[in-house]
Structure formats: C-alpha cells, structure tokens
C-alpha cells in the first residue's frame, strides 16, 4: 500500500506541474542547416492531407532536379497550423518556408518572425507587379513591406445543386439575398434544406459576416485600427446571417454544430441545395459528385450586381507563402518561393487545387476560364475585399467567430435571436479584444 501511495505522490506532482506549464509543445523543423535542404510546411488545400502530399511531391521533385535542393514537406492541417507557427516563432525552431492563411498575415507580420518582402526581395522572384494587387494587399498591413507572397487566391461563390433546383422549379441561382431567402423557402422541405453553414467553424463565420458587413457599409475595425464590433451595420450583418437559420429557416438547425466541412458532405449527398464556399469543386468530386451535378454563381448582393463598396460579395481569400527569418538557407528559400510562384507552377498548382493564380500571367491560362473558375476569377477581380489587415485580426476571428457560433447555438435551440442579443454577444467579443 505504501508503494501505491508513493506512485500516487509522483502522479500528483506531475499533474500539478502540468497545470502550470500548460501546453508547452514546441516542435519544429530542422531549420535547414544544410544549404541543400529546405523544410516546407504546406497548408491543407486538397480534400485530404494525403492528396496534398501527392500533388506537391511531384512538383518538389522537379525543384530538386533543377536546383539540387531537397525540400522536406510537411502538410499541416488547418486546425494545427497557427499554433505550430506560433510555437515555431517562440522557439525559433521552424521551417524555412511555410504557407499561411492570408488573413493571418498582419498578425504574423507583427511577430517579426517572417521575412519582409521589400522591393529587392520581390525582384529576386520576378517583381511585385507580377502579382495581382488585391492579393498582395492581403499579405500584410498597408504601408509596410508584405510579410508573405501570394500563392493561391480564392474567393467565395454560391454552389448549387442543379437537380434540386430543377425539382423545386427554380430556374436560376439567386442573385440577391431576397431571392435567396425566397428560393430557400421553396427548397427547405421534406428533410431537405436550402443552405448549408458551418456554425461552429469560427473562421468561416467571420468570412461570411465580413462580406455581409461590407454590404451594410461597415468594417469591424475603424480607420485607426480599433475594434468597432457593435455598430448598427455590424449587428445587422451578423443578424442577417444567423437569421437564415433563426428566422428564415433555410439552414438546418443541425448545422450549428458543424465545424468539419459536414455542410459540404450534406451538399454532396443532396441534403442541402446551396453552400457559400471557396473552391469546393475538388471536395464535391471527392464525395462522388460529377461536375455537371452542381453549378456555380456569384454570392448574392443586395442589388444583384456584384461590384465594389456595398456590392462586395467575398473576402480576398487565399494562401500566402512566407519565409521564416530564422532560416539558415534564405537563398534556397527564396529560390523555392520563386519556383512556386513561377508562371508554370502557378498554373499546375492552382489548377490542382481549384484556386486562381495570384500571378497575373498565369491567370490568363484557359484552365481558369471554365465557367466555375471564371466566377471565382471575376469575383476576385471585381467584388472581393481583403479582411481587415490589422495585427489583432486573429483575435477578431476568435472573439467574433465565437459570438456567431453562440448565436447559431441559440437559434438551433429555438431561443430568439434579436438585435439586442446579437449586440450583447458582439459587445462581449469586443471586450475580450486586447486593449
């Protein structure tokens, strides 16, 4: 019995210390000590990590053949990527080259861990003007050298199930929100629903309410970069989104707990008729849909004609490629970025991932003129705006994304969602922002 107690005493000490250390996991790559190797953290762009590895490995082999530099690839799932980058930043032990979600650019720029892309650095990869201006604008705070280089560009679009539209007698995809709600009510019956949502996915919530916020004439940060979540326009935008479930009843209540792309699965199974998504084609195909089964249209706007200002219908979504300042192989890393952003690779990679090349020359390739790609391309060119490029962007995504998640939970449980309840949640989110 004494031995049990001794063992238990050790267990007590360890559990106590865990309390204080929290999660101290700080793994990192090798940092590429040799000039002939690089470590690369890629984000998960394909339907699975395995598919990503397959696509990228083929290209990395080409790079190795040309330059003799071996790239060690790790595809990091989205759920881990930001934490991994933070751990790498703190410890200084990170990859040489990494993908970042472009909305994190300003936040990560503030850490100083990423190599700034000044004109000299851009010249090494062919110059800043090779890239579309909107894409470069989502790579860091305005007026500072970007913290990363655009790699893949994406925008939101309305994906709809052609068969379900036909069955309900709907002839064309809705162009305004009023049309979407009217169409939605026709489609939402008999266990089927009009629109899918990922209510527990914080980032997705932010993307959706950002575009709606633009249409109501608001930003979530004021001109000086201070959070301004509770303005009438922001409250209206958030309420409009949650009301698709709470009031209009065109989103299934179960979607409130979705966070792992279950809404795409529902779409592929014919349970929901529409989703607002970025480059969903490859995921639909992976779930067994044929390209003819679905159609793509611009995300609705109040006037029916997407454009600038109040007719913005998407964020500038995308992936940027960054170089870790601590890299011992900066030349090789730059060389690798140059390779990945070359016209040829841009065509191959963006074609595989269903995204649009941020490199202008590659955009002209016929592969990106197919109807579904054309919608994304036109949206990016005409009616997309970057999310606020402020250092607190990540906190904003968490705080406001959680507020929307909780409002969806209210709606799903049948509790009323009112202007007051929306304002209260947003106000709580604003109070959590760093002062």
């Amino acid at each position, binding site marked *: 019995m004494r031995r049990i107690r001794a063992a238990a005493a050790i267990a007590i000490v360890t559990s106590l210390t865990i309390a*204080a250390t929290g999660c101290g996991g700080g793994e990192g790559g090798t940092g590429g000590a040799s000039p002939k190797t690089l470590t690369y953290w890629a984000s998960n762009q394909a339907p699975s990590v395995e598919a990503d590895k397959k696509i990228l490995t083929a290209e990395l082999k080409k790079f190795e053949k040309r330059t003799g530099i071996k790239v060690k690839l790790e595809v990091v799932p989205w759920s881990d990527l930001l934490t991994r980058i933070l751990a790498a930043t703190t410890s200084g032990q990170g990859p040489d080259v990494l993908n970042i979600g472009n909305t994190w650019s300003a936040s990560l720029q503030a850490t100083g861990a990423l190599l700034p892309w000044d004109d000299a650095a851009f010249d090494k990869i062919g110059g800043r003007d090779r890239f579309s201006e909107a894409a470069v604008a989502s790579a860091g705070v305005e007026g500072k050298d970007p913290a990363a280089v655009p790699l893949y560009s994406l925008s939101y679009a309305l994906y709809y199930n052609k068969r379900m539209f036909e069955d309900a007698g709907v002839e064309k995809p809705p162009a305004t929100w009023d049309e979407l709600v009217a169409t939605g009510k026709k489609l939402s019956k008999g266990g089927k629903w009009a629109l899918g949502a990922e209510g527990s996915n914080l980032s997705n919530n932010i993307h959706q309410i950002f575009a709606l916020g633009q249409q109501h004439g608001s930003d979530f940060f004021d001109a000086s970069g201070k959070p301004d979540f509770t303005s009438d326009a922001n409250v209206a935008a958030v309420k409009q989104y949650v009301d698709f479930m709470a009031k209009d009843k065109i989103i299934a209540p179960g979607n409130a707990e979705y966070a792992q792309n279950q809404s795409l699965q529902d779409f592929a199974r014919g349970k929901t008729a529409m989703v607002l998504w970025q480059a969903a084609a490859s995921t639909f195909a992976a779930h067994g849909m044929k390209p003819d089964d679905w159609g793509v249209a611009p995300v609705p706007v109040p006037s029916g004609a997407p454009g600038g200002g109040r007719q913005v219908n998407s964020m500038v979504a995308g992936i940027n490629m960054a170089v870790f300042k601590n890299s011992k192989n900066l030349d090789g890393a730059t060389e690798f970025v140059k390779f990945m952003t070359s016209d040829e690779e841009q065509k191959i990679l963006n074609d595989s991932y269903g995204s649009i090349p941020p490199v202008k020359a590659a955009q002209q390739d016929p592969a990106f003129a197919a109807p579904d790609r054309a919608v994304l391309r036109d949206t990016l060119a005409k009616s997309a705006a970057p999310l606020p490029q402020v250092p607190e962007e990540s906190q904003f995504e968490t705080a406001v994304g959680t507020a929307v998640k909780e409002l969806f939970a209210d709606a799903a449980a049948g509790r009323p969602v009112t202007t007051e309840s929306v304002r209260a949640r947003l106000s709580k989110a604003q109070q959590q922002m760093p002062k």
Partner: protein
Amino acid sequence: MTPAATTTPRRAPSGSVSERTGAQPPRSRRPRLPGRLRRIGLPYLLLLPALVLELLVHLVPMAIGIVMSFRELTQFYIRDLNSAPWNGLDNFALAVDVNQPVGESLLRSFLTTCQFTVLSVGLCWLIGTAAAVFLQENFRGRGLLRAVFLIPYALPVYAAVITWAFMFQRDNGLINHVVHDQLGLTDTPPFWLIGDNSFVALLVVSVWKGWPFAFLIMMAGLQNIPRELYEAAAIDGAGVWQQVRRITLPSLRPVNQVLVLVLFLWTFNDFNTPYVLFGKAAPEAADLISVHIYQSSFVTWNFGTGSAMSVLLLIFLLAVTAGYLLFTSRGKKPADAH
C-alpha cells in the same frame, strides 16, 4: 562482533549494500564513513536522472510560465521573450477582476470546472469501487470482464474522445439515434456538442474515461485485505453491506486518500477531453478552465494573461492538495494508533 567482520568492509569497500547493512556497527569509526556516505548518496544518485528530467520537462517551463505571468507577452514580443515589457501584477489584476469580462468569464469557467470535477470524481469513484467490489468474487469470466473494464483507460485519449464526438453529433450521431429515433425520449433530437447539454456530454466522456483507473486502484487495494476478516465477520453475523462498511471501506482508506486526490487533479486539469470534444471555443456550459486558459493565451495570443491564469490555477490546486493531505492525515493518526 568478530574482528573478521570489521575488516571485511575495509578489504572490500565496494561490497554490496546488503553485506554492509548486515555488518553491525564496527568499533572504529573511520571505515564507516565512506559506507554511510555511499548509503546516503546512492538513492540520490539513482534519483538523479529522474530529477534532471523532471527539472527540464516540468520545473523549467513552470518557472518560465511564472516569469511570463508578470510580462505583457503578446504577438509583438513572442519572438523574443526577453523583449516583453514587465507589467507587474497587471495580468493577475485582469484575471481576478470579476467585474470585467475577462475575470468574470474566468470565474464562471472556474465554477463550472469545480462542479464538473466534483461530479466526475464522485461518479468515477462510485462506479470504480462498485465494480472492484463485485469483481472480488471468483466467477467464470471474471478475467475477461476485468480486461474489458480497463479498455477505456488503455485507449489513446484522442482516438477515444473523437469517437465520442462523432457519437454525440446531432443529426448522424449514435446517441441521438438511440435516445431520439429508437427510444423516442425527446421530441426533437437534442444537441450535445453545443448549448447546455454539452456539460452532460463532457461528464459522460470524462467518467467513461476515468472510472477504470479508480477500478484498477481499488482492485489492487482490495487484494490486500485479508479474507479472514470477512470470514470472521460472517461468522459474527455481519451482512454484505455491513462487511463493506466496516471492513472494506476502512481498509481502503489510505488507497482512497490518494485515489481521490489524483482523480481530482487529473479531472480538474483535463485538457484533452474538452478540447477534442468541442474544439477551440468550448460552449459556455462546458468551458473548463484548462481550455479557457488555452483560449486566453494561444487563441487570443495574450500569453501573459494566460500564464497569470495558470499560476492562479497552480496556487489553487496546491492549496487544495495541501489542505486535503493535512486534513486526511490528521484524521488518520488516531485510527492508526488503534
């Protein structure tokens, strides 16, 4: 004492421990010293690797965490911890000011965690003890049952909890299929992973995961109780319940003392279960303190405040542990004197 015995250690100073302890105190003092030194030194030498590792793995990060709690550590400074400005007790002030949203939500999360811990530890103990007592009897299939009972404890936490997360899904989950579709206990399928039910879901998973440990420890404790005690009690006419109350539970007292404490600490600090079940933003009803602190530091990138909360949590757990040990050992002495 023969002279030969006293000379043995001198001739073979590297003699085994048993040899030396076997040798009674020799008359001359000089040869004793190195032996005693070695005897005292050996345990420390053996402990050294563990101590070094413990220092590296636990105490150093802990110390850094305490230092961090006095600094303003946001994304602007994480690249170089030394550049973060000191801000005294500001982080602590923010964490304990219950009139401000940060402190208020921390307090709510703390109370939720207390409630959750009491329920989870209580249920784990109850189920574990009951199962251990029932499995004391020899019957066919006892070994099999024991093995089956230990499965939740042996499964990797992540794999087990993610399976529960699937089962708790509202539209496609197994739980609702049984509760709603088959038994018809509810009018509409309830949510388990969002809203108020999430507390129940968390509790179920936690108890499922925790009780086999209680079972295991109790089973070991029960093996140590002599059977004669029960036989004597049975002859004296004690029923099963009386045997449990008067023999089993008092005999298990020392085991229980550590078991409850360990379960308490594990449950209070549990991070994996809520994190895997709910993700980064746990619903308010199931917002356990470990995930809350994680969110306060990793997700909002304010590591100073998060560290301050961790330090507060550490102080609380130390106080509870010390108080508990003091309380239980004070009650034990008169019992031991019997």
